[in-house]
């Protein structure tokens, strides 16, 4: 049972509620007054860590917080408490693990934020575009160029692989494959650089609801889909070289 919590869009901000044990208000994980563990409230992963929805994350800080919370929420600590609290500790621990796994991976983190902001990631590209829809334009053009490119690269790679399999282990071919690999890896690095720039733009925004915000989100969706075609190509070329 990993997904005890709703991970899809939640109103941002901590849900405030009373501590079930002492009746005090606004407890998140533990009651501020009496320290009792609180029931599982649906919070997104950023909120769970008490952070704003920003994409630049300090890994050491994430790790520190993860280990700190793991220790505090560990089910062993609740072995002698009510079954209710035992369940909550389990649920929170599992939520914490999901949150940590998602936030520490740059791509998963970006995808998660996009979903939180209401975008459809990994759906049909046309449906994903907020800004484009608002402006009445279609994004077909950009993505068909990208598909052409991905298709072409796949074709080239297949030819190289085919020759390779036919036993033509000549140096020329090896060199071409290696060149292809470094070109693709460089492209991937370039994309990641672009993604980083978009993170910075997003993190600098004061208002995450306006048109500038949805433009940034849209370009992140576009970039991630470009990245997934490229990632496959890199995987394939590495496989070909390993054969």
């Amino acid at each position, binding site marked *: 049972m990993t997904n005890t919590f709703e991970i899809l869009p939640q109103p941002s901000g901590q849900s405030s509620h009373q501590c079930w044990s002492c009746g005090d208000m606004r407890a998140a994980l533990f009651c501020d007054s009496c320290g009792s563990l609180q029931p599982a409230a649906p919070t997104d992963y950023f909120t769970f860590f008490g952070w704003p929805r920003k994409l630049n994350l300090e890994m050491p800080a994430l790790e520190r917080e993860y280990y700190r919370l793991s220790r505090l929420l560990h089910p062993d600590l609740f072995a002698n408490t009510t079954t209710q609290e035992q369940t909550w500790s389990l649920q929170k621990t599992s939520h914490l693990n999901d949150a940590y796994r998602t936030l520490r991976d740059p791509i998963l983190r970006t995808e998660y934020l996009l979903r939180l902001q209401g975008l459809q990631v990994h759906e049909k*590209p046309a449906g994903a575009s907020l800004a484009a829809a608002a402006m009445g334009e279609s994004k077909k053009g950009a993505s068909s160029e990208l598909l052409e490119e991905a298709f072409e690269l796949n074709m080239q790679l297949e030819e190289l692989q085919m020759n390779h399999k036919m036993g033509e282990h000549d140096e020329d071919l090896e060199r071409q494959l290696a060149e292809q690999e470094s070109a693709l890896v460089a492209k991937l690095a370039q994309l990641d650089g672009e993604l980083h720039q978009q993170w910075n733009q997003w993190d600098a925004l004061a208002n995450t609801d306006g048109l500038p915000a949805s433009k940034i989100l849209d370009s992140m969706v576009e970039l991630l889909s470009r990245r*997934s075609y490229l990632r496959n190509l890199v995987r394939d070329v590495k496989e070909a070289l390993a054969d």
Partner: protein
Amino acid sequence: MAYSDKVLDHYSNPRNVGSLDKNSNEVGTGLVGAPECGDVMKLQIRVNPVTQIIEEAKFKTFGCGSAIASSSLATEWVKGRTVDEALAIKNTEIVKELALPPVKIHCSVLAEDAIRAAIGDWKKKQGTEATEPAKVQAAQ
């Protein structure tokens, strides 16, 4: 994951792999992709200008077994149909024929999208050559 026999059949013995001249006026090309897995699929049709029947179909798919099988099946199904009949093909029929599991539904969607894209491309070409289809219609 276990593939159905039909998927395996199309996968190991794909029908109509290849390409058609994308510059020909009788050829429509559809190039589509699934961003969730990074797979790409190209499907081409050659339409008889008089009968509007799809006489030839070719595909090339870089993707999973289900995507290859779906596009292979799609080329078989569109052949011999008119353009409008081909447009009626639904991904759910592909899912059924190939017994695709839920996680592989997007692979069949890709094939349906590819058919639509190819027909769309062909239609666009006919639009720019208004004289040809007009004559055909008059003759019927």
